[in-house]
């Protein structure tokens, strides 16, 4: 286990280098010029040229990439082409907002999703079919539409909560629910599948046969064995939650990393794009490392491996 985790740690810089290289390649290979986006298509050639030099986008590809890697090593992420603010500083400002949003969404989605999944696995068949469609609708509805409809019903019609903006508890409820809808649905579906598998294991029969109460069997034997794969899937699905965060933050005007990334991409603000991509990747890799650590805690069999 220790050597495995060590390997995973050593892989992190490799993945980061791979991601930065891919994004750099993408930016370089596809047409489009940030300096033109900055000064407009009709600017004088000399102006464009000086801006290109200032931004450093006139240098050869490899030189730009190595220069960027060097910058990262120093913990610097460059400056935004537009605001000239340090990307690292901006990220530090915005990251807590995104983390708060993600944490609230998961605090909603995980308990609801897991209990619903267990209910689907244990409950009556007719219920199961109905809930199957409901949870599938949860993963099929577009996040941005769910957000807009919630905004319409709860903020505009009922006037219960503010429609958008960054702030305290009242502001976070709607975006968190929006982000939690697809998450709880997919967690419920995975939980159901895994729980049905566990229910068929011989040890479940043994537990019942030796006279344990049904509730006790569900909470100790079933829940424990179900949670491990479910946690893995939550970790692996993290990328899709990031997708959802980009859209949710854009709709609700939530000043987080997702919206920052979106704006950076639209304005071709490459340092911002690279910075947010790096943070997103780090978060993904980190979450999955934590998931692996959880394994060791939850499942004694893993420690031996």
């Amino acid at each position: 286990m220790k050597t495995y985790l060590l390997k995973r740690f050593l892989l992190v810089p490799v993945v980061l280098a791979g991601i930065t290289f891919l994004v750099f390649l993408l930016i370089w290979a596809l047409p489009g010029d940030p300096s033109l986006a900055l000064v407009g298509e009709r600017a004088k050639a000399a102006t464009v040229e000086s801006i290109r030099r200032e931004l450093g986008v006139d240098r050869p590809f490899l030189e730009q990439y190595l220069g960027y890697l060097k910058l990262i090593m120093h913990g610097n992420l460059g400056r935004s082409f537009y605001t000239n603010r340090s990307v690292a500083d901006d990220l530090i400002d915005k990251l807590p907002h995104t983390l708060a949003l993600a944490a609230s969404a998961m605090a909603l989605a995980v308990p609801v999703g897991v209990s619903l999944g267990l209910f689907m696995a244990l409950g009556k068949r007719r219920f199961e079919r109905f809930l199957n469609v409901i949870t599938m609708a949860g993963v099929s509805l577009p996040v941005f539409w769910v957000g807009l409809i919630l905004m319409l019903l709860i903020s505009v019609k009922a006037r219960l909560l503010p429609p958008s903006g960054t702030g305290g508890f009242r502001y976070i409820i709607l975006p968190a629910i929006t982000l939690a809808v697809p998450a709880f649905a997919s967690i419920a579906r995975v939980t159901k599948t895994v729980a049905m598998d566990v229910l068929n294991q011989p040890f479940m029969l043994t537990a019942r046969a030796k006279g344990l109460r049904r509730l006790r069997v569900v909470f100790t034997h079933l829940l424990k064995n179900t949670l491990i794969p479910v946690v893995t899937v939550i970790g692996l699905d993290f990328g899709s939650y990031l997708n959802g965060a980009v859209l949710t933050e854009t709709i609700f005007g939530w000043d987080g990393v997702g919206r920052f990334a979106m704006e950076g991409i639209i304005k071709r603000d490459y340092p911002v794009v690279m910075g947010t991509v790096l943070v997103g990747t780090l978060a993904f890799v980190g979450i999955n490392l934590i998931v692996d650590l959880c394994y060791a805690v939850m499942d004694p069999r893993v420690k031996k491996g």
Partner: protein
Amino acid sequence: MTRAAVIILFVIILGVVAGPPISGYNPVRIDLDAIKLSPSPEHPFGTDNKGRDVLSRTLYGGRVTLLIVLGASGITFVIGMLVGLVSGYFGGKLDLLLMGIVDILLSFPTLLLAIGISILMPPGILSVLIAIGSVGWVGLARLVRGQVVVLKESQQVEAARALGASELRILFVYIFPQSLPVALVALSMKMGGFILSEAALSFLGLGVQPPWPTWGSMIGQSRIFITSAPWMVTFPGLMIGFAALSFNMLGEGLRDRLNIFR
């Protein structure tokens, strides 16, 4: 469930293909005398801020969406299948490299990647197709590879090799057809996701450009009218939901019937 999904899909496809002439309005004709009318027998889905019939636009927008789903599925299938076959069959360093790329892409918010690609290209059907297709193949390739690794050790392949079949023949005559069911089921489960990705890109204004509607762009452009004309947002969103839902149900139904991944 599968039957319900097929019926819904059939209705959607029928409506989308035959719809615009039936609904009786031109989806792009502006009628300033009929701005933001709420749903009525004349305009079942209401009209938008330029007096265009929302039902006609919704039906027309579905064409683009379904076209993109088809195209993206094609791209995904070809790339995913090729990478999976090659990676699984030949193994070694190539396998390591290809699966490394797959791992990196899997750990990446694909929407951001698709947004990036569609921004750097002139927006339109092609950019959306490339954006969605170029990130969609990853999961499929991983799955096909897993199949191939098992299949290439099968006795059937061993027998073919003993009879002197060439590598290419083994790959395409023996292994490809057997990995096909898994690939097709996985693909059908991905189609719902393609609809959502296309909708998200269009919503952000990066898809097919106005005045031609798609479900996503209709919602994106109607966002500001959500208080005065909520039907402009509601109906296209419901269509996205129904289409994605029926594709997802179809995929799951196929999976359960063919008893795959079990």
